[in-house]
């Protein structure tokens, strides 16, 4: 029991770490990457593909980098991991844009992240570890499947959207993107670094509310989200439920994996929805 045994100094405060500065630098790099990607996009041809890849790598690599900075408190090892992950994401995006099955390269990103982070026990603090209860994996998958299935049924019944896999390659590429970039970076940053940090200071509901709100902002700013008002309203409902569910899973299981599985399952269903 640490209250009885651990040394305690009432006047000592944790040393401020240069986290905010590092986050600003990463934010600037993300914006720079997006701007550079858009410029490349406008060049057309191969530049367009390269630009999209740079944009994607900047955003998702930036999310992972921010998560690492918050968790590792600005340690240089985090920067090295972030650079390597951004490089791997850039390669996956490029492959995805250049080859029909190239997006499957995204499937290598999660094991790569695990490999890169294996020497950092501090990451256990954000739930970057296997869940103590294996059943939580099933629960996570069930939550994502329920929300995804519900989305398909409701939107097809309400708006008449079709449920269809146009091409298997396209569908699997989208799912691979969710596995290796979309769900991974969102869970790592919003549930991992941010929710875990705020949970320690504000309690569950405060942390869940703010991390869910930031998740919604991230997806509402995503140019890939359909612009139809009903689609945006639906996105708010489902993504809020998904983010809240992932926060609950993170708190219950102590791990990011169940929430990540829920996101992957949800987006796997979403990718089968044809919104026009």
């Amino acid at each position: 029991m640490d209250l009885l045994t651990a040394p305690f100094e009432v006047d000592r405060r944790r040393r401020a770490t240069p986290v905010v500065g590092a986050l600003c630098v990463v934010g600037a790099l993300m914006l720079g990457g997006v701007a550079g990607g858009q410029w490349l996009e406008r060049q057309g041809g191969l530049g367009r593909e390269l630009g999209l890849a740079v944009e994607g790598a900047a955003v998702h690599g930036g999310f992972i980098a921010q998560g690492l900075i918050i968790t590792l408190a600005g340690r240089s090892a985090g920067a090295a991991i972030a650079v390597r992950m951004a490089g791997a994401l850039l390669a996956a995006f490029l492959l995805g844009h250049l080859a029909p099955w190239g997006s499957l390269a995204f499937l290598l990103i999660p094991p790569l992240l695990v490999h890169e982070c294996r020497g950092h026990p501090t990451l256990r603090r954000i739930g970057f570890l296997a869940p103590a209860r294996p059943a939580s994996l099933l629960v996570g998958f069930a939550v994502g499947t329920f929300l995804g299935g519900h989305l398909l049924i409701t939107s097809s019944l309400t708006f008449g959207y079709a449920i269809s896999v146009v091409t298997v390659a396209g569908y699997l590429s989208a799912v691979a993107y969710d596995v290796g970039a979309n769900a991974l970076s969102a869970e790592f940053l919003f549930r991992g670094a941010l929710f875990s940090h705020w949970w320690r200071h504000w309690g569950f509901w405060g942390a869940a509310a703010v991390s869910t709100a930031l998740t919604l902002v991230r997806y509402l700013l995503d140019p890939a989200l359909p612009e139809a008002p009903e689609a945006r309203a639906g996105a708010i409902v489902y993504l809020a439920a998904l983010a809240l569910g992932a926060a609950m899973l993170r708190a219950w299981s102590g791990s990011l994996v169940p929430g990540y599985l829920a996101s992957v399952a949800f987006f796997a269903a979403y990718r089968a929805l044809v919104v026009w």
Partner: protein
Amino acid sequence: MVTAALGVLLAITAAMAWQGVVPISPLRHLYLVPVAWAALRGGARAGGLLGLMAAFFQMPLVLPAIERAGLTGAAVEGLVSLALPPAVGVLAGLLRDESRARARRLEALIEIERCLAREAPLPLRLDAAAAVVCRGLNATQVGLLVGTSAEMPALGSAPPGATLTPGSAVAWSLSTGRSVRSPDLATDGRFTLAGSPAPAPRRGLILPMDAGAGPVGALALEWRGEVAAGTDAAAAEIALHLALGIENARLTLRQRRFAEELEDKVAAATRRLREIDQAKSEFLSVVSHELRTPLTALEGFAELLLTRAVPPERAARFLRHIHVEARRLGRIVAELLDLSRLEVGVAPDLKREPLELAAHVERQLELFAGVHPAHRFSWKAEGALPALRADRDALDRVLQNLLSNAVKYSPRGGEVRVAARAAADGLVELRVEDEGVGIPTTELPRIFDKYVRIANQETTSVRGLGLGLSLVRALVEAHGGRIDVESAPGKGSVFRVILPA
């Protein structure tokens, strides 16, 4: 529970879909039944989850109808019916959680009081109370420390392997009487923790236990993960009750100890009374014997003188015997009179006059040496002795009693040493030392009591009433002095009399 409730929700949804009159199907109200049931059984989490599921189950039926008909009254009603189950689930669940928490807190308080009032050593009672606190507050670990000094090991209950370390947060709280709150021990800069960080926050709370008369200890609590709202207030309430319980336990303990001491004292007094009673009985028997002996002698010699023609020299001897026995009888009567005075608390009547102690001692020694030729007597005045202001007879009786005892309890040929010296503060110290059988240490406190005669095989033949030393003390104290004794079996005795000059 959740599976059954989900089944009911699905059945209602299926019935509504089959009925086809959504969004204002009267069946929608049925959603509230499993939701309320789940809320009452499982609290806000279960109620909210079931309510959310009810809303999600209705969506595919309500939303298409709204999309087709627009935002009509029925559509608004349908939207309300979407929002109602989660709201009811959460609110009913919160109420249930709150009432359950209150009930649990009340149960915990009663159980804590019961634990602390148990017939068991205090550490065991604290262990039991700590277990109740742990359950009542859903804590991971509980430490219950009694005492207020951080340097001293405090009595209490702690998880296995955990002991109070100086410099820890609990030690700080014990010494300052202040509380400590930490939302997460792992990231709290005030703590220096070893080991890898945990994925969930570890909340810490230390509350001084104070019932109003100052802290009696500290209650330390650790939680892993989420802590229910109102837990801090509940912990404060429990800490207060613990303080009251510990104070009560201490008072009970003190009262019990006091009662035990009182019982011991009453038993000792009863034992003493029995001894005195027995001593009085023995005293009566001794007095009868002591009076009868000289009376018999007086009677016998007087009868001889009256009834027979005794030659003058024999008659003179008989008369000397009669005289000795009459004096002995007189001494016994005088002692009995003094005793009766002492019994009623009247101090001996003293006629103080200036006296030379040395002259008195020398005269008494001369008399004793004449009567007891088998014993050796010595006298030593250590330096110049100041004159005493004392009662002549009383001083003689003090000396006679002490010398008589020294002779009676010494073997033949034993030496009786008397010494005197001027002590500090204008006092005079008189010592009477013998080489007798001595007095056991356990009997020394009783030696000056009335009727006390120390049982000893070597002195069974020694006659006496057990009043001599008691009278000596009364006479010495009446002069404003004091008397004490040093003795050991086989080593003789030293009686020391201190008298004011």
